């Protein structure tokens, strides 16, 4: 059984890669994909802490991730809707060119 630290370090690497993806890529969808990577890293941390918990009856970790996944689904739907609406307006999803709040 790998120790808790192994999972935490894996999640940390995943989070850093997601951060890099969200910040370096210029396409709005790529930014969203980076955010999904970071969310998954956080979820993995929750489950790892839940698995190695002292109290075996607590369900908090699993519940947190369950709700987090539901919120991630809502976030992805809204985010992609915004990106499509953005594309309709600007004809691009390059975030460096989308720099005005008022079209």
């Amino acid at each position: 059984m790998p120790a808790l630290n192994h999972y935490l370090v894996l999640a940390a690497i995943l989070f850093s890669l997601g951060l890099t993806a969200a910040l370096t890529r210029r396409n709005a969808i790529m930014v969203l994909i980076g955010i999904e990577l970071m969310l998954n890293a956080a979820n993995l941390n929750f489950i790892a802490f839940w698995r190695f918990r002292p109290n075996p009856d607590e369900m908090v970790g699993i519940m947190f991730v369950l709700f987090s996944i539901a919120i991630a689904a809502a976030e992805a739907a809204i985010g992609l809707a915004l990106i499509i609406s953005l594309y309709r307006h600007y004809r691009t999803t390059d975030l460096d060119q989308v720099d005005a709040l008022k079209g």
Partner: protein
Amino acid sequence: MPFKFFFYLIALFVLYSAYFVVTARNLFRSAMGLLAVLIGIAGMYLLLNAQFLSAVQVVVYIGGIVVLMVFAILLIADVTQKVFEQSPRWRQGLIGAASLLWFSLLAGSMLSYRFGAAAAAVDKSGSIREIGRALLSPAAGGYALPFEVISLLLIAALVGAVTVARADADNGEGKEGKA
């Protein structure tokens, strides 16, 4: 130790796929990399005795979010285009260094902290039965209220997404909007 073997196998798979997501030039390939990462994370949940979450991960993330992303990518981007616009080199280097620093901070604190007695895995898993009871129980320690709130949030998100993505009929763009 098969557990350790599977852990490293899946970890390697997840990290390679995540690296692929970050470096792939093509948007569609990045989305496929995300798919692989999500499958790997579902495997990790299995290793961590969270079977129900593993299934939820596959159904919601892979069956929902990735498919939605692929739809959006196919709607708005030319995926046959080989190379997508990149950030300037200096910005990539700067962000890469910042991410590396962030990672070393995280990993340093996680490896140096002694989790000690609390970090001994107790052999008990959250079965679907327990999760279902906890999710719908209104008593203390139950999650009935958050469950209802999340359903409200999902409806709001659904209506909001449709409203935002719907083409404006006023300024003549209504004909092209199919989403």
